[in-house]
């Protein structure tokens, strides 16, 4: 049996005027997994999260979170979710501890329970020493950590993280990733929005690429990379080498038509990476008498996928019998 869906949406839509908003959003997030909504600014990520977190009423479609309808059973949904919005939603003037205690009390805990939970979270997030300070004195990373802690006060089964690392330095970002991974390991279902391909790649098992208020593509990070196109062999020929002859030799190894040379003296060959590929290409060229300066294999990145998908609306996922299998792409990504 497949894991229960903690987030399920079908045809979800919200319009803010012609061309603004989101439409036809279908989502399925199994329990205990991390799914990422990946898209540029204004794509509609926040709008989707706000509808799922019962902050915004959809114009059309439906969504269920933790088994409850977001419109008809909003309060039941709110008992099971945590939300870290795009803005750090904390009271600047209050201390870190007071913020958490207040949110605990508002989550129907007694004062004592709320205090205990706050102390617990402050320890887990390494904020004990700053607990008594007003939040406005916190650094960006500390604020984000407290914000995340704040969304965990009620022990949510489903966690929404809207661009949780935007504006953070690399160290703080990695630390936050680690926390998110740990939460997912412990059974929390996470829906995370991000503009960073790397972040989606690092955290999510499944990515929905959002552009213009729609899901432009979805799949595992590997599948999306595969959609970015094949790997490329970049060959730099020695001065005076015969370009035409080199092209003829390489055509036999190419997985598709050779691209026009990006720079004079260079050749770009789409290939299916396999063991011994580079060696055999060099040997072929050597036998044909073409001198080579340098040769390198370039794997497709999620960045390529993103650019390809967001650039052309018609871009979709490759079918299973495509030249590059998703598994292979993923394995390469790991190895790289």
């Amino acid at each position, binding site marked *: 049996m497949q894991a229960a869906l903690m987030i399920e949406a079908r045809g979800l839509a919200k319009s803010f005027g012609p061309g603004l908003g989101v439409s036809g959003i279908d989502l399925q997030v199994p329990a205990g997994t991390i799914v990422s909504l990946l898209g540029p600014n204004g794509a509609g990520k926040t709008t989707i999260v706000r509808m799922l977190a019962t902050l915004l009423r959809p114009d059309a479609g439906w969504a269920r979170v933790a088994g409850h309808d977001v419109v008809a059973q909003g309060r039941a949904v709110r008992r099971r979710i945590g939300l870290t919005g795009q803005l750090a939603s904390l*009271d600047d003037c209050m201390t870190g501890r007071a913020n958490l205690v207040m949110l605990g009390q508002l*989550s*129907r805990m007694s004062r004592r329970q709320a205090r205990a939970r706050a*102390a617990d979270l402050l320890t887990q997030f390494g904020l004990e020493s700053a607990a008594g300070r007003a939040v406005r004195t916190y650094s960006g990373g500390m604020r984000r950590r407290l914000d995340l802690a704040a969304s*965990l006060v009620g022990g949510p089964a489903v966690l929404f993280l809207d661009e949780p690392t935007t504006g953070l330095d690399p160290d703080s970002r990695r630390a936050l990733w680690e*926390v998110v991974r740990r939460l997912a390991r412990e059974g929390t279902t996470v829906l995370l929005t991000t503009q960073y391909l790397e972040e989606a790649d690092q955290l999510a098992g499944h990515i929905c690429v959002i552009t213009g208020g729609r899901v432009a593509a979805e799949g595992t990070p590997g599948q999306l990379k595969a959609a970015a196109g094949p790997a490329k062999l970049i060959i730099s020929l020695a001065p005076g080498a015969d370009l035409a002859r080199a092209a003829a030799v390489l055509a036999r190894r190419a997985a598709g038509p050779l691209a026009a040379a990006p720079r004079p003296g260079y050749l770009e060959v789409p290939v299916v990476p396999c063991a011994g590929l580079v060696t055999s290409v060099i040997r072929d060229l050597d036998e044909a008498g073409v001198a080579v300066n340098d040769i390198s294999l370039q794997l497709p990145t999620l960045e390529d996928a993103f650019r390809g998908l967001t650039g052309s609306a018609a871009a979709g996922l490759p079918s299973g019998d495509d030249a590059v299998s998703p598994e292979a792409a993923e394995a390469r990504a790991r190895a790289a």
Partner: protein
Amino acid sequence: MSGGTAGLGHPLAASPAAVAARGAGALAGARRRSQATAVADAAGTAGWAARDMAVLAKRTLCRMITTPEQVLNVTAQPIIIVLLFSYVFGGSITLPGHGSYREYLIGGIFAVTMCGTAQGTGIGLAIDISGGLIDRFRSLPMSRAAVLAGRTLADLALTIVAAAVTAGTGLLLGWRIHTGPADTIAALGLALLFAYAASWGGACVGMLARSAESAQTVGLLVILPLSLTSNAFISTARLTPWLRTVADWNPVSVLATACRQLLGNPDPSAAIRSWPMQHAVLASALWSAVLLAALVPLAVFLYARRVQR
């Protein structure tokens, strides 16, 4: 959730069964919470709403204490107005009859100060909305009305401080209460009732405003004309008839007159033949009741609409 829960969130396996079990209350914390919820449903949500309101009112008060600018704004303003009208304008303002202008003035400044509460409410709510804090509150299983009610309650507390400052300044300048404690308490009660009603008006402005700055501007644009077309600073006896009618029905005039009557201060309005001036105490209570009846639902409606955007 007690401190006994180790790890982040809950150390449960990611199996569907575990997740389902969590919902069923497998964890002590979750069980406590769902029991509490059942009690809430049985006893009605009113109790929880009251507690949420108290928690948020406390938060707003903490915020006021840690940001003295806001308190200073509310307390310095009455002092400045009292001094300004006593020493700068007071000399060129004469009352019909023989009352002392300073004795007359304080009742008016009470009324104007009560209006000021609304501005604090509007600005505070606008800040909370733009900062994203309201979104967090709305993602919690708490009472949604408590966000507005908690804020207006805290603002009322601040208004009591402002009223005390106004009275203290007045006493220093020779203003006196000439009646007993019952009348004094009645005057304070009427003033605070009006402040509370005005505060909900401020909540409406806060919901409509794009930013804290625009909430402040709109607040000023309402409060200033309202104060200046009242009998707070001058007697309306010599105004042109249509303006006098406006001034006599103005809730600020009505409250100022009610305070003057209840505190035994000079009250030239007693000579004015208009219903609100003749029955100022009743009229002020009615004004506040009408404002509350209109503004509370309006603010709640605007809140629901605003957060849907």
